[in-house]
């Protein structure tokens, strides 16, 4: 069971890792742009963004492989600028795993311990402990090229944990695994992090992965942080159209605010339809906003049925995607906008009540939608 209070800015005290107005350019092109971020002890923190958003550069600056052009990277209050990578109390698990091909599995795990001139018997004990931790007992004498991809991934993990780092950096650690193994490993990573209590920072472009493993997620785009929050917060209250679209599926209805007060807001779209939103989110009358709706929060019914929600639109089913656990209905409205509604397949339906080209009504409650100003 994983039931830990989410550490965060409130209550957890001093940050363990602090990026303070950090910038990094490669050949004049900014990779990270005046970015500030605090990560707290014991967090499982995810840096999430599309490729090229600067998330890996951020991680490599913490490991010491890149030097920031401006700003500071601090670990436990200490500025890391003058500290070479081999002295930093952080360890990294590389995307390519970077296992030493000339060393055995045990040799790989022991590599960092040898650098610390640890006693031989202590090294042996630690290696065995680490291999047991990642369930590779008995494979210590193998060479990396005799292992499967999943096993290599575990060796890399054991090696990066062997020195008991203050922070473990994971650079797309599961990208090379197939989907099923990846999902299993995600839960193992969470379990491991909880048992060890080490701060984990994971870099990933896979939003599901970030949502699954992380306590907090920083969504990055073009070298900047767009939103930092817990996974549910990011999903349910995205800060901008971009975040809403990047994390999961979203329907956006653009419109202007015609009414806003403590009990909610009313938005009118270009076609004159009015929608109620429960949270005004601080908008004022006249503002251009978007109503963001997750597909699973829409209800779909035959057009003839009575509207039982505050908001509804009518359209025609244009496509149906059957995904096994759910079906996604693509509905085209009269004005050409397309909306997606997903419905859990609670029964083993063979005949769908709604089919292609049916006239349908999509409806949702005022509390299901979020207003986006950016």
């Amino acid at each position, binding site marked *: 069971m994983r039931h830990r209070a989410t550490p965060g800015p409130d209550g957890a005290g001093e940050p363990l890792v602090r990026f303070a107005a950090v910038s990094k350019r490669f050949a004049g092109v900014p990779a990270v742009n005046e970015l500030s971020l605090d990560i707290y002890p014991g967090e499982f923190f995810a840096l999430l963004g599309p490729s090229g958003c600067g998330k890996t550069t951020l991680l490599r600056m913490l*490991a*010491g*492989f890149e030097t920031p052009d401006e700003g500071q990277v601090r670990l436990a209050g200490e500025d890391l600028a003058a500290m*070479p*990578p*081999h*002295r930093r109390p*952080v*360890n*990294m698990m*590389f995307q*390519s795993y*970077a*296992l*030493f*091909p*000339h060393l*055995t599995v045990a040799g790989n795990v022991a*590599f*960092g311990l040898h*650098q*610390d001139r640890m006693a031989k018997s202590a090294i042996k004990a630690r290696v065995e402990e680490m291999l047991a931790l990642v369930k590779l007992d008995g494979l210590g004498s*193998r*060479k990396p*090229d*005799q292992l499967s991809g999943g096993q290599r991934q575990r060796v890399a993990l054991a*090696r*990066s944990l062997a*020195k008991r780092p203050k922070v473990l950096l994971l650079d797309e650690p599961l990208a090379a695994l197939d989907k099923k193994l990846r999902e299993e490993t995600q839960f193992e990573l969470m379990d491991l992090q909880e048992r060890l209590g080490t701060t984990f920072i994971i870099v990933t472009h896979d939003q599901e992965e970030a949502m699954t493993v992380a306590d907090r997620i920083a969504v990055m785009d073009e070298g900047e942080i767009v939103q930092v929050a817990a996974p549910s917060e990011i999903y349910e209250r995205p800060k901008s159209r971009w975040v809403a679209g990047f994390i999961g599926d979203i329907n956006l209805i653009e419109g202007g605010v015609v009414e806003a007060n403590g009990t909610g807001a009313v938005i009118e779209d270009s076609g004159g339809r009015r929608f109620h939103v429960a949270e005004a989110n601080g908008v004022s009358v006249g503002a251009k906003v978007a109503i963001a709706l997750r597909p699973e929060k829409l209800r779909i019914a035959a057009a003839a049925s009575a509207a039982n929600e505050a908001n509804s639109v009518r359209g025609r089913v244009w496509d149906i995607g059957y995904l096994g656990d759910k079906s996604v209905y693509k509905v085209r409205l009269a004005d050409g906008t397309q909306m997606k509604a997903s419905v859990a397949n609670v029964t083993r339906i063979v005949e769908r009540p709604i089919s292609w080209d049916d006239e349908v009504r999509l409806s949702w409650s005022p509390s299901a939608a979020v207003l986006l100003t950016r």
Partner: protein
Amino acid sequence: MVPLGRRAADKVSAMPAPPQPPRSSSAKLVVLAPYLWLVAFFFVPFLIVLKISLSQTAIAQPPYLPVLDLAAGWQGIKDFVAGLSLENYATLASDDLYFFSYLRSLTVAAVSTVILVLAGFPIAYAMARAPRRWRPVLLMLVVLPFWTSFLIRVYAWINILQRDGLLNQTLSALGLIDQPLTWLATDTAIYIGLVYSYLPFMVLPLYASLEKLDDSLLEAAADLGCPRWKAFWTVTVPLALPGLGAGALLCFIPIVGEFVVPDLLGGSDTTMIGQTLWTEFFANKDWPVASAVAVVLVVLLVGPIAIYQHLQSRGVENR
């Protein structure tokens, strides 16, 4: 190189074999081709040399006896076998000229190989670390000397090393020497010539090994607390060993039998085995002794290959 091929083959055999489609006869021929080549151009000539080494010198055409006379039938074969002897090998053992020739060849080859490793490693390392777009150019520069004949390049060294040659001129122009030094006909000249001639054979395999080295391995070493200089010895060098071994063999073996460089640049006081062989063959017209010298040389050279293969296979077993 045979040893590298073996290593690769071992790697493959460690994995489950993929189902193979039945080989067509033309595919079989392709596999056979290198073996046919080896039989025709190595094994058969070696047997001929081996046979001559068991014969006696004679003033005849060919200049040795016995000659297999198949026209005489069974008796001819019996006479032929009876005529063979190990006499020439006894000659090699009794005269320490041969022993010292072999010893000198092995010494010169060993010392040259060490110098080649020391000179070749930094070059190969710098090439492998150079920006990617520079590498083809650097590779080209290493291979460039091959565009001129080997013999002509060694003759050019005579010019450079002679008493009023370029080297002495340069040194005195720099004020480093008052009197011209004697370079030619010394061991130094032999080593200069050998290292110059064989450097590409050391640099190319080393470069091939070093170029494959993934940068993230060095980052991983640093990440785990290993300073840069130490990672060179714990990561870079071990991973360059296959290239180092191939380069050392590619240099050591031909240098043992080298004739041109010591003959043109070296002195006449001590000879390498290649020169001894040449003298026996062309000056003394003693084909059988020359052949015996060659056979012993081949046996001596198989030694280091066997050791290398042994080390390689031990490396494989340690996996």
